[in-house]
């Protein structure tokens, strides 16, 4: 029996895979006309009940279950379907628990195991379905019902979502854990499944649903505000069109002034110089005389006796003279190669009586080492000699460095 089922399932899935393009076309367009080039494939899909005909003259459509698989797997936001029928799930869970208890009581192990597996499946799929519904709700909230165009449609979508949340919450209230506890009795497996795991899921989901509800209300408020403003503007135009000589009542003459209209006169006016006032002339001239052009580079006016022709030619080669300190470091590296033994940088400095300051010498040696091409650097090893800072951890004070051939 179970091998038959297995084979049939594989066959069905293969069929889906073979006609994946067609199935997706139907998923996206909603329905498919018969005939045409795909007639054979369509007929096969219809026979295996992947496509079905809702009414005699209608075109073929995708079965709801296949649609649901695709919607879920693709997280398609158009999916609005939420299974809020908690009652029937609860009833089937209770029934299966009854079967299991009876089988256990009759010491029928194979039957009880099968029932327990079934029960597991039911409880988990119930939890998964619940979580999925919440996920669907969130995805709709997160893009603010972006899949419909107008504010009114958004408000309707929001109201639909709210009713779904309420239904789900009402459904969840039907779970009486005392009752489930009684059913489970002292059977460990049942307690784990019906009490611990379900309770956890339910409390999580209830909490999340109340957050969802809050967000939905907030969104609805915003949508209504937007709609209210649009209507306010339109209404205003309509009203002023109908009553061309309408003027608002003088709302500020009351003793109690609405705070909205209590606006003080500006004390500080934006400042600007009146260039037309001759009285300011000396000051303005003074300001102008103090304006100076700041040029960062010296531009000596150059006078050319004659036109200089410009031609583009190969740039001449030029040398950048090497820094003597850098050359000395190169010497040091060479001497390490020559001698083949490790030598400290400062010792070398003293030996050769070089004029450089000790610190800059060390810096240049380290730079010289780091600046070597990768393949050359492999020949050397550089070891800093020093000690960690006595006070601040993580700092290492380098007193000297040593270089040797690797």
């Amino acid at each position, binding site marked *: 029996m179970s091998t038959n089922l297995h084979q049939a399932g594989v066959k069905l899935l293969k069929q889906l895979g073979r006609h994946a393009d067609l199935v997706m076309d139907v998923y996206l367009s909603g329905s498919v006309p018969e005939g045409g080039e795909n007639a054979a494939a369509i007929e096969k899909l219809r026979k295996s009940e992947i496509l079905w005909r809702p009414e005699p003259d209608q075109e073929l459509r995708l079965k709801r279950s296949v649609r649901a698989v695709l919607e879920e797997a693709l997280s398609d936001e158009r999916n609005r379907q939420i299974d809020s029928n908690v009652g029937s799930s609860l009833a089937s869970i209770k029934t299966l628990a009854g079967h299991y208890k009876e089988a256990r009581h009759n010491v029928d192990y194979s039957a009880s195991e099968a029932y327990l597996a079934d029960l597991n499946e039911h409880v988990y799929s119930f939890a998964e379905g619940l979580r999925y519904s919440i996920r669907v709700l969130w995805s709709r909230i997160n893009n603010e019902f972006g899949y419909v*165009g*107008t*504010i009114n449609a*958004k408000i309707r979508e929001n109201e639909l979502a709210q009713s779904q949340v309420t239904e789900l919450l009402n459904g969840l209230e039907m779970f009486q854990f005392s009752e489930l506890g009684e059913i489970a009795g002292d059977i460990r497996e049942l307690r784990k499944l019906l009490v611990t795991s379900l309770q956890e899921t339910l409390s999580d989901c209830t909490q999340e649903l109340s957050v969802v509800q809050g967000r939905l209300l907030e969104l609805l408020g915003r949508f209504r505000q*937007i709609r*209210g*403003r*649009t*209507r*306010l*503007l*339109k*209404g*205003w*135009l*309509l*009203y*002023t069109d109908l009553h061309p000589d309408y*003027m*608002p*009542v*003088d*709302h*500020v*003459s009351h003793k109690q*002034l*609405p*705070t*909205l*209209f*209590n*606006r*003080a*006169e*500006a*004390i*500080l*006016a*934006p400042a600007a110089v009146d260039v037309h006032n001759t009285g300011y002339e000396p000051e303005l001239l003074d300001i102008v005389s103090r304006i100076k052009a700041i040029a960062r580079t010296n531009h000596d006016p150059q006078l050319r006796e004659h036109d200089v022709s410009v031609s583009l030619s190969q740039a001449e080669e030029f040398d950048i003279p090497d820094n003597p300190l850098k050359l000395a470091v190169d010497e040091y590296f060479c001497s390490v190669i020559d001698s083949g033994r490790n030598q400290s940088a400062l010792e070398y400095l003293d030996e050769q009586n070089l004029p450089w300051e000790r610190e800059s010498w060390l810096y240049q040696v380290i730079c010289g080492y780091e600046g070597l091409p990768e393949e050359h650097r492999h020949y050397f090893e550089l070891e800093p000699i020093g000690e960690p800072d006595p006070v601040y951890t993580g700092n290492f004070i380098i007193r000297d460095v040593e270089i040797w051939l690797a």
Partner: protein
Amino acid sequence: MSEMTETAIVGTGAIIERLLKGEFICRTTDEEAWRSLKSSTTRERVETYLNQINRTIGSAGEGEVFFCGYLQLGDAERKVISSQFRDICNALIPLVEWLVLVQESSGQDAPLSEGAAVRLTELQTRIEDTPAFREQLAKISHYRLFGSTSSNVDNQIKLVFKRLVELGYLTRPNAEKQIFIATGKLDYLYEVIRFIDETEGLSLEAQAETATQRDLV
């Protein structure tokens, strides 16, 4: 510590200056000042200062927009307020028509509100392409509030936007770009209309709804 108080003083100084210039402070125009005013300590400090010169902080749009009002109302203050009220009443029709034009020409669901961006070049193309919008723009730009005398769409729309920036309904964060952002003063405007609607019992929203329903039928 001393550094902190110093920056706080500089901050409140700038806020007070803005308020005394008659500007509206919202998240879009000056986020830092807006945040400071939301904190009660800074707000109290500013309020204490303003109280000394018979001023107080007023707010609108559910506390999202701040402006400067009078603490005590004498005859002189009332005069200023009623002239300002007359100004805003005269500005209402052009502004509302402009808001509806922007909303309809850009095909949006929501009317302009604080923080929303308007791309002038895009808007201009849309208006230029539709004769009805062009007519509407010409009508709006010739109102006294905007005072255009031009018959050219480009001049009209540029002038309208320039005036709206001057009046504080829009800001232009980058002078090189033709992108404008609506300020909290627009939200203030909505509140003014709503106030008038409610106190005079005009039931504007209901009228608009029945009108759209009639259109649907």
